[in-house]
C-alpha cells in the first residue's frame, strides 16, 4: 500500500517524509532523515536511548509510529544546543564526566531537559525516578544525577 505522507516540525524545522505504517518514528529519524543522534538500544521502550519529545512530551521514539508524528513538534538531541552554545545540561554532562561510552547520553539529555522544563528544582530522588527509563551501563548514574542537579541549579541561577 502507499506510504503515508507526514508533515512535522523537527527541532523547529518543517520536515516532510514518507513512511510505511510499520516504521517507527525512530526508524524514520535514523534511516530516512539521517538524524542518528537518537539511538536504538532495545526497540521495546525499556532503555530510553531513543528519547525524543513530541509536543514537548517525553517519549520513546521506538514506541511511536512515524505516521503518528503527523502535525507534531518533535525535539531531538540535535536540537539541544543553540548555535555555538551548548545547553547547560550538555555542558554539565561534560564537566561532571557524566558519560563514558556516550551511547545513552542523547537519551539522558533529552529526558533531563524534559524534567527541568517541568521541575526546575528536582530532588535527587525525583531525578532518579524521572530517569529510571534511561539505562546507563557505564556510569552507575552517580555523575549523571550530579550533572542534572548542577545544571538545574545553573539554570535556576541564570
Amino acid at each position, binding site marked *: 500500500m502507499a506510504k503515508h505522507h507526514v508533515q512535522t516540525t523537527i527541532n523547529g524545522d518543517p520536515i516532510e517524509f514518507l513512511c*510505511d505504517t*510499520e516504521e517507527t518514528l525512530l526508524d524514520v529519524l*535514523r*534511516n530516512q532523515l*539521517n*538524524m*542518528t*543522534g*537518537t*539511538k*536504538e*538500544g*532495545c*526497540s*521495546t521502550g*525499556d*532503555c530510553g*536511548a531513543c528519547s525524543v519529545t513530541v509536543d514537548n512530551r517525553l517519549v520513546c521514539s521506538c514506541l511511536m509510529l512515524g505516521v503518528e508524528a503527523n502535525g507534531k513538534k518533535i525535539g*531531538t*538531541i*540535535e536540537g*539541544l*544546543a543553540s548555535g555555538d552554545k*551548548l545547553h547547560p545540561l*550538555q555542558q554539565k*554532562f*561534560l*564537566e*561532571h*564526566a557524566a*558519560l*563514558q*561510552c*556516550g*551511547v*545513552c*547520553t*542523547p537519551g539522558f*539529555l533529552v529526558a533531563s531537559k524534559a524534567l527541568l522544563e517541568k521541575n526546575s528544582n528536582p530532588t*535527587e*530522588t525525583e*531525578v*532518579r*525516578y524521572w*530517569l*529510571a*527509563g*534511561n*539505562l*546507563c*551501563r*557505564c*556510569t*552507575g*548514574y*552517580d*555523575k*549523571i*544525577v*550530579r550533572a542534572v542537579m548542577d545544571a538545574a541549579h545553573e539554570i535556576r541561577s541564570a
Partner: protein
Amino acid sequence: MQDKAKSPMSSEFSVVGTRPVRPDGVDKVTGRARFGADLNLSGQLTGAVLRSPHVHARVLKIDVSQALALEGVKAVVTQKDFAPQVNSTTAFGEGTLNLMHMLTNVLAGDKVLFHGHPIAAVAATNAAVAKRALKLIKVDYEVLPHVIDVDEAMALGAPLLFPDMITEGVKPAPTTPSNIAKRIDIVLGDVEAGFKVADVIIERSFKTAPVHQGYIEPHACVATVSEDGQAELWVSTQGHWIVRMLCAKLLGWDINKIKVTAAEIGGGFGGKTVVYLEPLALLLSQKSRRPVKMVMSREDVIRATGPTSGSSMTVKIGATNDGRIVAGEALLKYQAGALPGSPVGPGCMCAFAPYDLPNVKVTGYDVVSNRPKVAAYRAPGAPISEYAVEAVVDELAATLKMDPIEFRLKNVAKQGTKAAYGPKFGPVGMAESLEAAKASAHWRTPLGKNQGRGVAAGFWFNIGGETTVSLVLNEDGTLGLTAGTPDIGGLRASLCMMASEELKVPLEKIRVQIGDTNQLGYNFLTGGSRSTFSSGMATVEAARDIKKEAVRRAAKLWELPEEAVEWDSGSGSVRPAGPNAGKHTPMTLVDIARIAGKTGGPIVGYSRLNAHGAAPSFACHIADVEVDPETGKASIVRYTAIQDAGRAIHPSYVEGQYQGGVAQGIGWALNEEYIYGTDGKLQNAGFLDYRIPVASDLPMLDTIIIEVPNPTHPYGVRGVGETCIIPPLAAISNAMSMATGVRFAELPMSPPKVLAALDKARAANTAKM
C-alpha cells in the same frame, strides 16, 4: 562525597590528576558521535540472521533457494561459505581461541547448540525483505535432548554437546567423552597440612547465574567489499585488529584485504572482543557487491552473545584462632556456554589472590551446556570465584569474632607475597585499600533498622600487550595523536593528558583519534584494563620520541652536536645544554615545527611496543544494604568503592570506572540472571526482564582512589576498569547476612529466593523455641 585522588607525587604533575573535559565529549552530547549503527553507505543492504528455534538439534538440511529467489534478496550465506577451520585451541588475550569453535558460534554447522544459535544470514534491499527471506529458509532439524545447568551437564548420562569431547588437563586422559572441556589445577603448599593446623574450617557451596555485559549499544557493523576483494569494515568493537584477524582467518582472506575502522563504541565490558556479525557482513557484501549493514536486536544480543559464566562452587577455608588463614581450597565449575572457553582459568588464579596464604588448592572445570557461548565480561571469571571466597572469609571472621577488615588485613597480600597462581607481587595496594576502608566515615556510620554492612576485597591482574601509537607534530606546532585501542570510557582524554604532561603542550593543541587498522601497527584490544596502561605507555614514549627529534633538529639548526642540546621539561622547549654550547634562544615545539622542513622533514613520534609490567589492582568495597523482611527485597543504601589506581590520570574517569563496576556488581548480586524454562529456552531476552540497575535503584556511589604507583609505567598507571566489578557481589551478600542473620549462597539474591531463605530461617528459629 567524592574524595579527591590522593597522590603523594601529585606536585610533579601539572596535567595528570586534573579533570579536563574529554576531547570527544562535545560530539557525544550533541548526537554527532557516530556509533556502530550510525553509518550508512550508498547502495547499502540490510543483513539479517536466521537463528535456531531449537535448543539442541542436528541440522539435517538447509535449503536457501526460496529465500534467494525472493525479489530484493541479494545474498544468503551458511557455514559452507566459510573457510574450513581446525579444531585447536591457543592462548589469546585474557582467554583462549579456537577458530573452529568461533566459526561454529558465528554460524552453526551440522548442529545447533543453543536457542538463538545463528544458522544462516541474508542480505536484502531492506529490513522487511530480509525478514521475509529468513522465513523462506527451510531447515530440517532433528531435535536432541538438551542440558542447561552446569551440575547436570557434568553428571553421568547428560546429553553430550560434542560426542568426541575428552576432558583436557586430566591425567591419564579420560576414555569417555563428557561435557567437561577442561580441568585446571592450581596448587601452592599443602592444603591438607594447612587444614590440620586450622582451629576453624568453614566449607560452603555456592551457585551464581550467568549475567550479560548489558552494553546499551547492540552489536552493529557495516561491511563493503569491492570487486577486487578489498574490504572495509566499520564496527563497534573493543579491538579492531582482533576483528580483522578473526575475519581474515574465518574467511580465508589475506589480512591486508580488510581495513577495519572502530566506530564509537556504546559499551562493551568484554562482550565486544569477539566477532558475531562481522564475518557475515563481509561475506554477504562480497557475494552481493553491495555494502551490508547488520545490527543486532536487543533480544539477539541477550540470547546469543556472550554473557559470562554461571557457576557451581565449593570453597573451604581454615584459620587459626589468632586469625591467620592457613589453607584455602576451591572447586569451581564454570559454564562455558555451548562451546568450550569459560573464564574458569582466571577464576582459579584470582580466587585467593587478595591474601598471602601458605596453602592453596583450586580446581576448575570448564563445562559446556546448551547456552550461548560466554564472552569476556569485566575481570572475566574473577567476580565469581572471589565472591565465594569473600563470603567464606566473612563468615570465618564472624566465627572468630574478628572485625572483617582486621581479619583481611591480617592475611593481606602485599609486596613480596607469592600468589598461588605463580608470581610474586610488586608494590600493591590491598592493605592500603583496607586501611582506607577502615578509616572511612562510611565504616563508622551507624546502621538503621534491617540494615547490614558488608565488605569484600577484590583482585584483578591487568594486562599489557602489543600497542602502537603515533604522534605527529603539525606544521604549526600542534599535535595529532593516533592510538589503536578503542576508547570505551575516556581513553582519549587520558592519552591527551599524558602527551600534554610530557611535552608541556596545552591539551587543546592535541587532537586525538583512534586510528584504523591501516594507520598503525598492530594493537591488541581494549580489555584487561590495558588501554590507559599500554596506549598510555606508548603515548609517553611517542612524546619522548618527539622530544628527542626536537633536540636533533635544534642541534642541526644550531650546528651543535646533539649532546650539546637538551629538552627543558620545565618550559617544554629545547635549549643549549650548557654555557659552552653557545647562546641560542630556546625553541618551543612551535619553533621546531616551523624548521622541520629544512632540518630533515616531518616530525613524527612513534611507539610500538609490547607493554610489559602491567600491575594488579586491588580493591575493598563497603556496602550498606537494607532488606525488607516481609518481601526479601534488598536496597543498596550506601556504597563506597576503594581501589588502587596506581595513578589516576583523569580522576573523574577513574571514579567512573569504579562506579560503573559497582553498579554492574550490584545488578549481578541482586537481580540479573538468565532465566530458562524446562524447554531450555531463555525467557528474559530483553531489558524488561533482564533487570539491570536503573537510576532509582542506586544511591550515590562513593569512591576513594588509592595511588600506589606501578613502577613499570612512566606515570605509575595500573588498569582500573575490572577490579571494581569483583567486590560488590560478596560485599552485598555479606551485608545481607548481617542485616538478616542468614547466610546467602546463591546469586542473584532476588526477592523470592531471599524471602524463602528468611522464612526457612524463621521456621527453624520457631521450631527451636
